[in-house]
């Protein structure tokens, strides 16, 4: 699900460089809300004072279409009263009276809802951390880079695409900075500074005779990095049939290749439907991991909390309790990690004051754990939360969101070329495309950006109209090889949607190239 990013007010770029409220001021405001909540009868309260900065630079061909700078500042207060959750959010808070009012509103909601309650909320105990802070380890703050430099980069990317055969090109640079202050009645006062970046483009080529058009999107990944992501070193590049990128992205080089490939797609062979061995690049596989592993192992889904929108999960508690549910083949190790450097999910503490960690979800193919937060930990017999609670804004209530979930690299040395050498009839897929999965995460369908036909161990040409369909357990059990860590790269989602009202979160998924045998491929060409 890809909803729009939670937007704030439009500001001048210079406003980004002004510091937000001082930590001492935030502590004073937070205490006002915590005290008011307790005075009104709350047994627990937490406060998030958030300043969210977004910058989008939007261009097409030789034009700058839009430069949007937004800032959103406000407060969300969450309480437990009469055993029930309540939440209230207020924009632009700057005094104790507003904080107390928000806390009182949250308590009133909790009390009204407690009439419906049968089981009170159970929170896993969490020690307070006192006054602490965390900063994303960025090398260059994107908000400090002049707008002109960003515009020049995008226009040069567009120019390169047009010179190499594109009919149209749209390019966008997204920058996000979350300045989050969390305080709770457990005694934590946590100040965090999170940065994200995502440079993207979409190139269109048109065949005027047939009226057919094809597109090729950027092979960049959204990252939990600063502007340094746009300064690629040779070591960040993975060469092969097309260049892919690791911790640094060469947008100009990718756009040049993309324009040529979008043109090549116009005359590529339309795929013959059938069973193929799939070689999936990390720039593609991240999305399959996200949908078929990340989401079904969210404990709130498993328990039914998302039944009305995002759905439930096939990975039920009985499968986990059996200790022998074969989620995938022995090659499959899937890891949840909120610490991974450069990832979108990395923070010091989650949005309910729990310190972050790394844990196994699927070990040697067997389901071993889920993703849980404080009010769920007791259900899976754990004494503490996994630290994956998140809210996309001060105005949204925090709930369980996916940590980074990644496929561990293979332990045996194996390169992509070596992997392809053994494939008789296969398709090599690079980049993410269309995606869809059912509400319990069994049946899925994925497209891609680039498809290459493999015959008898060799890449023989480009294909188009490709999508594959499979069932999660069948798919992961068809995984026969994973390349080693030299090929390990992150992909990710900037706008993962979940919840009602829907919230957006950003999450990374790492992997090396992996091989899946005998997957059903369909042809998506139609005539209207």
């Amino acid at each position: 699900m890809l909803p729009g990013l939670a937007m704030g007010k439009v500001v001048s770029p210079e406003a980004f460089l002004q510091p937000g409220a001082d930590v001492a001021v935030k502590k004073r405001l937070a205490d006002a809300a915590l005290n008011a909540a307790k005075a009104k009868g709350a047994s627990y309260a937490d406060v998030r004072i958030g300043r969210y900065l977004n910058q989008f630079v939007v261009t097409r061909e030789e034009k700058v279409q839009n430069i949007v700078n937004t800032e959103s500042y406000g407060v969300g207060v969450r309480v437990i009263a009469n055993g029930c959750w309540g939440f209230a959010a207020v924009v632009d808070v700057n005094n104790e009276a507003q904080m107390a009012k928000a806390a009182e509103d949250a308590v009133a909601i909790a009390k009204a809802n407690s009439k419906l309650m049968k089981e009170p909320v159970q929170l896993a105990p969490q020690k307070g951390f006192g006054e602490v802070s965390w900063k994303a380890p960025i090398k260059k703050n994107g908000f400090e880079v002049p707008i002109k430099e960003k515009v020049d980069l995008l226009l040069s990317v567009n120019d390169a695409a047009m010179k190499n055969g594109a009919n149209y090109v749209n390019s966008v640079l997204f920058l996000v900075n979350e300045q989050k202050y969390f305080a709770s009645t457990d005694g934590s006062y946590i100040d965090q500074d999170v940065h994200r970046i995502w440079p993207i483009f979409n190139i269109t080529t048109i065949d005027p005779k047939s009226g057919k058009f094809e597109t090729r999107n950027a092979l960049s990944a959204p990252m939990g990095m600063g502007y340094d992501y746009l300064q690629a070193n040779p070591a960040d590049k993975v060469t092969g049939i097309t260049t892919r990128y690791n911790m640094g992205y060469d947008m100009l080089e990718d756009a040049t290749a993309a324009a040529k490939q979008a043109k090549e797609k116009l005359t590529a062979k339309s795929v013959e439907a059938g069973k193929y061995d799939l070689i999936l690049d990390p720039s593609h596989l991240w999305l399959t991991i996200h949908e078929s592993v990340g989401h079904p192992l969210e404990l709130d889904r498993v328990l039914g909390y998302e039944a009305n929108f995002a759905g439930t999960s096939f990975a039920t508690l009985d499968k986990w309790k059996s200790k022998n549910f074969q989620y995938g083949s022995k090659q499959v190790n899937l890891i949840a990690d909120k610490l991974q450097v450069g990832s979108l999910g990395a923070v010091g503490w989650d949005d309910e004051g729990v310190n972050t960690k790394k844990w196994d979800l699927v070990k040697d193919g067997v389901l071993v754990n889920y993703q849980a937060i404080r009010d769920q930990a007791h259900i899976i017999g754990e004494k503490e939360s996994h630290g994956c609670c998140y809210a996309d804004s001060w105005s949204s209530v925090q709930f369980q969101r996916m940590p980074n979930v990644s496929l561990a690299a293979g332990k045996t040395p194996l390169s992509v070329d070596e992997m392809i050498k053994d494939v008789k009839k296969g398709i090599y897929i690079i980049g993410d495309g269309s995606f869809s999965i059912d509400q319990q995460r069994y049946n899925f369908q994925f497209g891609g950006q680039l498809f290459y036909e493999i015959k008898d161990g060799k890449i023989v040409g480009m294909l188009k109209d490709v999508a594959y369909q499979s069932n999660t357990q069948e798919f992961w059990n068809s995984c026969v090889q994973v390349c080693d860590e030299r090929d390990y790269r992150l992909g990710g989602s900037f706008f993962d949607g979940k919840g009602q009202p829907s919230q957006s979160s950003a999450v990374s998924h790492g992997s090396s190239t992996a091989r899946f045998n005998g997957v059903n491929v369909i042809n998506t060409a139609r005539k209207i």
Partner: protein
Amino acid sequence: MAIILTEAEAKALLQKVLKYSKADECEINIMGEERGNLRYARNEVSTSGALTNQNLEVQSAFGQKVGVATVDEFSDEAIEKCVRRSEELAQLAPENPEYVGVLEPQTYGKSTGFFESTAAINPDFRADAVAKSLELTRAQNLTAAGFLENQKGYRAMMNSKGLFAYYPSTNINFSLTVRTPDGTGSGYVARGYSDAKKLDTAAATKIAILKSKGSVGAKALEPGKYTVILEPTAAVVLLENIFFAMDARSADEGRSFLSKPGGKTKLGEKIVDERVNIYTDPANPDLPSSPWSGDGQPINKMSMIEKGVVKNMFYSRYWAKKNNVKPVPFPTNVIMEGGTATLEEMIKSTKQGILVTKLWYIREVDPQTLLQTGLTRDGTFYIENGVIKHPIKNFRFNESPVIMLNNLETLGKSERVVSTESDRNYLIPPMKIREFTFSSLSDAV
């Protein structure tokens, strides 16, 4: 000052903001809203909350140079600072070749979208409305997960040429999924209204309960092409992809389902069955919406597809000027004209077919053909000789709404529905479609 301003208060505030302006042109947009929600699952309240929000946005232009700034605080000092900042930004900005200036004053039609019944909702109202639903599911040992959200707010704008627009609105959306305790049956219902008096959570809940119990014991059918009856909740998530893709610029540029070889478009051509009529009408009492677009253009009743023919594509003011045509703003509501058949009559006239009550996770596979993929969910049933024989397992489909509307058999009566993909409200009829393409089976319930 209150968060929700009256028309007179909004006008006075906007006039004050405009007095600070020193730019060639100035346009101000303001909004204020209060929202509340109650979410529940496993027959228990989960998260719920309230939000108060307001915003004022100033756009200043010097020639083709445009700057925008906003503020959440409405004090004189904060507002003047915001106007100055937008002017500074405009002076620094590169020339925008697509800026076409602010509009002259316009005349707008009437649309009543604000209802006191909805505006007065408080946490107790929400708890009581949900209690009526929970009583039914708890009594039958079924598991409910639902969401109730109400909103009241206004938007207003004014510009330096004297244009003024104001629109207050209220809305309440309720959705519910009821599952059997063993997880083998699931049913869904969604209701959206401007007037909360129309919401009957108990009546809606009974529909979801019926579908939940009726979907237990689903049998597998072979994937393939089937005649389907799409309930409005299922149809809308496919159809809205047509509405979203009717932008004239993309069509002119050759990258739309409305493009033709040689730079031409399908404007004026028949693209779907001649019984298909799709239009916008902000004054429709069942689906009131703003009679003006975000840039102040009036939105009146206007056809998008008439008797299957593309009547209007959406032209931004810039693209319209460049092509010497009238601008056509993106509509604030969309209505598809229905037929006369009831759902029961449509089932009765079906020899062999599938009743689809909801679709899920719709994603575009090919923008050229608008091919979409997704799955059935929360109640799918096999029809034989005019009756529902049994529930069936869910399918994945790969189908284009354009192809679908060419394979139209029957249209039922339009009703207000909430899209489970975009959350927008529409008036859409149930429809019978032949040769709808299901490509694989899903084990999901």
